[in-house]
Structures are given as structure tokens and as C-alpha cells.
């Protein structure tokens, strides 16, 4: 076993937000938010658009600093974006290799690259450039790059929302399968409630700006979960209710 190099096991990783507040100018975006994400947990944040979900990811990744409160992170963090996160001047294989930069041994790097390609089943597109791939394929490459090497925590900012509906459904299963092979701590932001219910261990329903946590919801049924799984439907209903969508629809 290579010590620590091939991360098919979960290292200790943790994200802690403590009483975090942030304003853009005079506009409060986040108010007194406390949140702990434990090792191996899959946390999904849903909330109305513009509520500050992406800002929370920016705080976790260190791209932004909080106005008040503290943020502690343990582990290597990588972000998966909605689209265009791949470098267009690099081939698929070179993009994934970016994630393996920390590995010094080139033989080991090769081996790891091959196993990642097997995992995302895109061996035939190794030497293609991102603009030659479909949207779903590009997101699979992004996932492989983020899972490569020494990453511990994935921050995912609506990674599937630019995809068509069917591809989006497939990508959910794909993500679950990849995480079975390479477990990671995940913080996933989406406006897609089904997606939240299918993927999450814990769903955080956020309020309108300034963002506070309206509801925490544990979903314990085994993954992958079907769209028609009882717990998924139940969770979807609770989330819709908390967001106020159900009431509005009925009125």
C-alpha cells in the first residue's frame, strides 16, 4: 500500500464555520451561520437563488474571508464548478493530471491516471480537448480531476445544473459511484431539490438573504437512491415546504 498517495480511503477532514457573518457593502449576505461538516459526510445546501450558497462555498474554499466569526478547515479542498472549470488548452488527460501534481513518482502518477480514466470511462477521449466533449463528459473529467491525488474535500457549486435533465440524472448516479470508489467529504450546492434528496446525507435548507439555516434534514437510506424512493419523496416534500414553494403553488 502506498502511504497516503492513493486516496481510496478517507483521511480526517473537517469543515467548521462558527458564527460567520458577511456583508457586501451594507448588504448582509450571511448572518451568524454555524456549520460543521464531518469527515466523509455529503452535505447539500439548497436555498432560493441569490441566498448566498455560493458565497458559503467561497468562504469554505478560502476565496473569501468572513466579516465576523471563524472558519476552520482540515484537508485539501477542491472546487468543482458549474462549467468551464477545465483548462481548454490542456487535453483531458493533462487536465486530470493537474490533480496528480503532488505525486512525485511518475510511475505511480501514470497508474493513478489510468485508474481514474477507468473510473470515469473516458479512455477513448484521453487526447481530446475539453471543447470537443459534451457537457456531461466535461463534468466527469472535472470530477476525476478533483478526485485525483491528495484531495479530501470537494466543494461542488451546482456542478450539474448546466446539463440537460437526463444527463443530470445520470451524473447523480455517476457521482455516487465515484464516491464509493474514492470517498470524500462533500459540500454540494444546488437549487435542484430532487438532486439534494437523492445525494445528501444531510440537507441544509437555507433562507433568503441573509442566509441562515432554516432546516437540517438527515437522509439515511442507502445510496444510490431512486427518484421514487420513499425517503427521497419525503425529503423533497419537506424541502419544498420549508422553501415555501408548496404553499405558493397552492395559493
Amino acid at each position, binding site marked *: 500500500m502506498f502511504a497516503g498517495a492513493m486516496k481510496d480511503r478517507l483521511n480526517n477532514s473537517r469543515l467548521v464555520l462558527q458564527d460567520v457573518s458577511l456583508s457586501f457593502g451594507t448588504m448582509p449576505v450571511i448572518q451568524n451561520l454555524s456549520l460543521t461538516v464531518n469527515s466523509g459526510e455529503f452535505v447539500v445546501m439548497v436555498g432560493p437563488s441569490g441566498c448566498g450558497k455560493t458565497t458559503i462555498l467561497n468562504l469554505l*474554499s478560502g*476565496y473569501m474571508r468572513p466579516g465576523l466569526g471563524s472558519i476552520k478547515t482540515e484537508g485539501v*479542498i*477542491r*472546487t468543482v*464548478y458549474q462549467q*468551464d*472549470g477545465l*483548462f*481548454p*488548452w*490542456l487535453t483531458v488527460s493533462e487536465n486530470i493530471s*493537474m*490533480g496528480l*501534481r*503532488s505525486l512525485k513518482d511518475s510511475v505511480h502518477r501514470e497508474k493513478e491516471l489510468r485508474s481514474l480514466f477507468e473510473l470515469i470511462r473516458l479512455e477513448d477521449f484521453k487526447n481530446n*480537448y*475539453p*471543447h470537443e466533449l459534451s457537457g456531461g463528459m466535461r463534468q466527469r473529467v472535472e470530477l476525476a480531476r478533483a478526485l485525483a491525488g491528495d484531495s479530501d474535500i470537494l466543494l461542488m457549486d451546482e456542478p450539474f445544473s448546466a446539463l440537460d435533465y437526463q444527463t443530470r440524472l445520470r451524473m447523480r448516479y455517476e457521482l455516487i459511484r465515484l464516491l464509493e470508489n474514492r470517498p470524500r467529504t462533500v459540500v454540494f450546492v444546488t437549487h435542484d431539490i430532487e438532486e439534494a434528496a437523492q445525494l445528501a446525507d444531510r440537507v441544509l435548507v437555507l433562507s433568503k438573504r441573509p442566509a441562515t439555516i432554516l432546516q437540517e434534514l438527515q437522509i439515511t437510506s442507502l445510496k444510490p437512491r431512486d427518484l421514487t424512493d420513499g425517503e427521497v419523496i419525503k425529503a423533497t416534500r419537506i424541502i419544498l415546504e420549508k422553501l415555501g414553494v408548496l404553499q405558493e403553488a397552492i395559493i
Partner: protein
Amino acid sequence: MKGKSDRTLFNSGQAPALVQNKPVAYKTRRWRILVLPLIVFFILLLTWYLLVRFNIFPSYAMPSPGAVARSFWEDVKSGTLINDIVASLWRVAVGFIISALLGIPAGLWLGQHITARQAFLPILNFLRFLSPLAWIPFAILWFHIGDKPAVFLIFMATFFPLALATMSAVATIPAIYFRVAKDYNYKGFELLTKVTFPAVLPQIITALRVSYGISWIVIVAAEMVGCQDGLGYGIWEARNGLRLDSAAGYMIVIGLLGMAIDRFLSQFSKLPNVRWGYER
């Protein structure tokens, strides 16, 4: 349902032929690319011939196509044309390479540092709009006659557009690339060579083609006053001897060489790692 309505429309029970649009269109396009410009060329040649034939301009001011061809052949045989071509190409190459080697890094630097940009942008814009030909008196006094003033003028003509184009390309790189770069630990010089530079390379290639075009225009003017050989000097000397047939031959050579080199530079935009910049 659709087949049925087709049948009534065309009154035919037969299946429609397979659509073969694409290959046919491709073939005709290739054919057109060769033939259409040739037709235009011959029309222009004929117009030229008729202008001479009916003495629209006095004959000393309008050489005939035949006279141009004859003097062209003389210039080739005597070796002056080849010598002038080599001289001009050399000056453009040196001036252009110096300007690329300094202008592209300068643009990268300016693009990344807002303070530098604020400080230098007005003066760069000022110099960009100053015609390089305005430097001719200084160029000759500083560098005398020969390659140097021409190289200097080429540099003055191309450095500013190259630096400014690179700078604005850097300033518009999507922020997401730098965020990804941070996630994967690209820093300092590596960030510059592995992220910033490839991200602007397609625009740099375009800027190189544009500024090469400028330099090929400037060299002719520069050589008219600052040199003893070169294509520009050849035209100037032909004018002094009232040999407009020779001047026209030189003009044709300048145009063709310019096209050929641009064709060569355009090959860089076909490199696989810059294709993305032209296809999006």
C-alpha cells in the same frame, strides 16, 4: 404521417434519396476557392491592359502588364530583386522578433498588475497612435543609414499594439481559471507559464498576425528613406529613374510576400492547444 403528406406533395411513392449535402458542398467549395479568385484576377488584369491600351493615363505613368513582366524578369536576373527581398525580410524579422520578445512579456505584466496598467496605459496609447513614420527623422539621426533605423521603426510600429493586445487579453481571462489554478497549487512563474500564457495564446497569435501586417507596411516606407537596399528602396529608386514598370513589379512582390508570411503565421492558429480560442 409526414411520409404521407410528402407523397401527395411530390406525387411519388419512392423513398427520398439519401441526403448527401455535406460532401458535395465541400467539393464545390474547394473548387470555388481556386477558381473565383482567378476570375477576379483576370478581370483586373484585363482592366489594367485596357487602361493602357486606350491611353487613359500617359504611358510613363501607367506601364503595361507586359512591361512590368519584362522589368520584373530583368530585376530577377540582375539579382537586385532577390537582394532587396532578403534585406527587407531580415529587417522585418529582426524588428518583429525583438518587439514580440519585449511586447508580449510587457503585456503579460501589465495585464496582471492594475497599478502598472494605470501608470503606463496613457503613454502606451499615446505612442500607439503616433505613426511610426513620424520617428523617421530621429531614426536616421540616431541609427544612420542601414538596417538599424528600419528595425527601429518596425519595433516602434509593432511593440505597442502587441503589448496592448496581450494586456487586454490577460485582463479578460475568466476568473475561474485562476481559482482552479489556486486549487491545484499553481503559483508565481508556473502560474504565468502554465495558466496565464496559454489562456491568452490564441489572442497573442491573432495580435502577432495583425502587427506583422503593420510591420510589412512600415518596412516599405522605412526603406524609402533610411536604407540603400530593400523592397521599399527598390520602389523609391524606380520612381527616381521614372521606371514605374519596375516599381509595379516590386509592389506585386511585396503583396505576395505579405500574403505568404501571413499564411505561415496563420498556421499557428491551427495548433491543437489554441483551437479552443477560435472555436468558441
